[in-house]
């Protein structure tokens, strides 16, 4: 009797399963598609992000220049003719640039026209002339064709980052200026050249003069301070906890503490830096020393955790072998364990440094948002760092700063890629299988 119900139910199983099979496989395909779509979407965001940055930023590595035949008019530069350096230094070079442009583009220009004309070139053009004169006063009285950097507005239009059509919405150039641009193009007197200023200059209110070198140097100093502090401390802590520490409440506390520190928002570290490093120890505001110290505390947990993992990976047999030869615990670590764990520790450190390089919020707290034109000469000088420079430029209203921001992001990402590659190569090179 029971046997019969069993049998019928086995048959029913087969039938029911078959009947529902298509629906179940359709659900399976949908589910699988959802997974694939998530990955594609996530990767798509990455592509979109990088694409946006590159599209908006690659032209930042180029500088629009206009060929202008300038006259080093002695009447303007040095009316007295005695070549006094102060006179040469403070002469009205912008007028010379203006005159030269007018001579080329609008010989009978009125005041308004001349203002439009001088808005075509950057004030760097006059500066370029001033430096030529300072270096070699004998150019006075002569003429020269110079490639002068264009103003940010012309720069944007010429590179195609701003609309070009006459009267287009959001166009920063007047119709007259667009006409001049067309004429310069016709005669080949405008070009795009490698943007040296961007890679060698400090910050500036004028987008075409703004450079990232100051921020790069600031980042370098900050990271140097960070590395000097966090690497020895991190390695020492990792060695202590992994190799020597007794298992007790105190070391448990340290461990829990390190894990939690790793998850504390970085802005809180900034508050610590402000309250302790600036207000108690009076370290100079906006300086890489203060920034580096804060960053060191931020990446210390990363380095410790990576260091401990590297030490854990060294097999105990090596420690036993060294101990068997009569080495003291410290000798075992210093001679055998540490050298073997070092690649792993360095990898962790580089990754920690990469994180520190991109860290922004805590540095805002300690005043690294100041507008700093000078290239810092020491870790005590006020300076910007790359991510903060990006933040500052991103907040600027000029359209040309969007390009600078994107270009700076590309530089920052390049540094990060280089650091990560170094970490990967280090790992590959020293990867050991026990």
């Amino acid at each position, binding site marked *: 009797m*029971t*046997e*019969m119900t*069993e*049998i019928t*139910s*086995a*048959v*029913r*199983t*087969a039938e*029911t*399963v*078959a*009947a*529902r*099979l298509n629906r*179940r496989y359709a659900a399976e395909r949908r589910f699988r598609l959802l997974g694939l779509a998530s990955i594609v979407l996530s990767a798509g965001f990455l592509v979109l992000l990088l694409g946006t940055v590159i599209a908006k930023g690659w032209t930042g590595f180029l500088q629009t220049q206009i060929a202008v035949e300038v006259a080093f008019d002695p009447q303007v530069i040095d009316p007295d003719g005695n070549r006094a350096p102060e006179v040469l230094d403070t002469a009205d070079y912008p007028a010379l640039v203006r005159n030269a442009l007018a001579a080329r583009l609008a010989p009978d220009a009125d005041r308004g026209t001349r203002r439009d004309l001088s808005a075509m070139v950057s004030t760097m053009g006059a500066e370029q002339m001033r430096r030529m004169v300072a270096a070699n006063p004998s150019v006075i009285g002569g003429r020269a064709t110079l490639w002068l950097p264009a103003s940010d507005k012309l720069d944007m239009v010429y590179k195609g980052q701003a609309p070009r059509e006459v009267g287009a919405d959001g166009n920063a150039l007047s119709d007259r200026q667009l006409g001049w641009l067309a004429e310069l193009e016709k005669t080949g007197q405008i070009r795009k050249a490698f943007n040296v200023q961007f890679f060698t200059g400090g910050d500036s209110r004028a987008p075409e003069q703004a450079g990232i070198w100051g921020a790069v140097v600031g980042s370098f100093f900050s990271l140097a301070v960070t590395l000097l502090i966090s690497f020895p401390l991190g390695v020492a802590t990792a060695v202590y906890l992994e190799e020597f520490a007794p298992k007790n409440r105190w070391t448990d506390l340290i461990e829990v503490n390190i894990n939690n520190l790793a998850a504390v928002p970085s802005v809180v570290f900034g508050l610590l830096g402000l309250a302790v490093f600036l207000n108690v120890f009076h370290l100079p505001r906006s300086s890489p020393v203060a920034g580096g110290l804060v960053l060191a505390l931020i990446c210390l947990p990363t380095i410790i955790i990576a260091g401990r993992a590297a030490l854990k990976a060294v097999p105990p047999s090596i420690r036993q072998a060294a101990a068997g030869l009569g080495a003291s615990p410290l000798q075992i670590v210093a001679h055998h364990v540490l050298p073997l764990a070092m690649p792993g520790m360095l990898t962790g450190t580089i990754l920690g440094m990469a994180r520190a390089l991109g860290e922004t919020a805590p540095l805002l707290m300690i005043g690294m948002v100041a507008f700093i034109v000078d290239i810092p000469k020491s870790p005590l000088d006020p300076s910007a760092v790359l991510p903060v420079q990006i933040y500052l430029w991103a907040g600027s209203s000029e359209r040309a700063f969007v390009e600078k921001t994107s270009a700076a992001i590309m530089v920052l990402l390049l540094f990060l890629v280089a650091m990560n590659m170094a970490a990967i190569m280090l790992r590959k090179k020293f990867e050991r299988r026990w």
Partner: protein
Amino acid sequence: MNQFIPRGTSKISARGLNVHYGDKQALHDIDLDIPAGEVTALIGPSGCGKSTFLRCINRMNDMVDGAKVTGSLTLDGSDVYDRQLDVVQLRARVGMVFQKPNPFPKSIYDNVAYGPRIHGLARDQAELDEIVMNSLEKAGLLAEVESRLSESGTSLSGGQQQRLCIARAIAVAPEVILMDEPCSALDPIATAKVEELIDELRDNYTIVIVTHSMQQAARVSQRTAFFHLGKLIEVGGTEEIFTNPREPLTQGYITGRFG
């Protein structure tokens, strides 16, 4: 006698079955018939291929990377490895109980109801309740868990967990139940209960059991197949194999000279 499980006819039959894991050949040219309505035990030293053979029957080997199966393996005359045959359908017909009890981290009720639910075997809640109770009853577990069906399956003891897994397999109403060393993780008392259960289930299902314990094979099975180094050495009635083996290798194994 009923027409669906004519006792003694061959339910599963392998002909020239080979299994490769990557470069390694795990099974060599197996010819084996497993009769319906009986318990067939697969014995042999570890690594002999008995589990591999078992896992071929419901195609669990599909999930192993690099596994390749050649030759033929049929269930009721239709090829298990036929492209047309659906794995889900196959596994609904061929249930499996694993070496380590692996109840889902769900309630006892949900564990048993899982199979019927995914296959849509119950038309309503009452029917599902009936299937679950029935299965637990048949697995000899109902009395122990009736009052705590909503507790987690993992809260049970090892032996109870394994019987829960058996109930879970029965709930789908399969034709064949594969058991991969079902008692190896259990204590002797739990083992005795499971063995008793296997004996009862024999009436309704074709059972294939892999075991490393010859006593167990002798206690629960009607037929025994002895595997060695990926080859089927000998197959026959359990009593015959244990009392009067034809092959010296079998003789050596059951007398404990190796294994």
